């Protein structure tokens, strides 16, 4: 299927466990992004990647790790999940960075940390 997909769509985990959220895009977009969306905070950038093997921190990177070995995949790992990481996570991609190009968002992963 063309587009941007995220898996799983829903995840419940416990404090201290490692969790990996997957993101896959079929457009060969250079840029990929991870956001978290929380009530009262809107969308906040966690990490982004300009190309394979190039990643950079966003506004709220603590507690998260990313990798990008292939252009189409951009997994987000919570190394030791905390309750404050309960959120809805969105992956996005775009051809170029900046605010002139559309960012295409995945459907989101709702993560609950107990």
């Amino acid at each position, binding site marked *: 299927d063309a587009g941007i997909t995220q898996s799983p769509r829903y995840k419940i985990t416990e404090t201290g466990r490692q969790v990996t959220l997957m993101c896959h895009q079929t457009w060969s977009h250079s840029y990929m992004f991870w956001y978290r969306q929380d009530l009262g905070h809107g969308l906040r950038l966690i990490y982004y990647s300009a190309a394979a093997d190039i990643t950079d921190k966003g506004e709220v990177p603590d507690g998260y790790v990313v990798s990008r070995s292939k252009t189409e995949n951009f997994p987000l790992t919570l190394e030791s999940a905390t309750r404050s990481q309960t959120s809805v996570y969105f992956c996005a991609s775009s051809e170029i960075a*900046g605010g002139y190009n559309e960012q295409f968002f995945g459907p989101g992963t709702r993560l609950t940390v107990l």
Partner: protein
Amino acid sequence: TQLLEQSPQFLSIQEGENLTVYCNSSSVFSSLQWYRQEPGEGPVLLVTVVTGGEVKKLKRLTFQFGDARKDSSLHITAAQPGDTGLYLCAGVVYQAGTALIFGKGTTLSVSS
């Protein structure tokens, strides 16, 4: 401190009414985008405005970028239930990298 302030936070109106959503900042933006998000889905781009004073129309939606590129507005004429959703403004701060900054959003509910 939120770089992009959206108002109102919530809006509940009847079908056929007009409404305006505001997105304000003390910073200058290179561009501003408006996204719409429906429950359980990711945001979808509605429009990008780049030039100060620019006005763009998308059917019943009118978007304006302020002359000083610090604010934007979204006006919906004759709202319909299908307009219900979360409206997000987002922009790139002028000469401050390429990261897209999002406002907290305006939740719009249009009832028939």
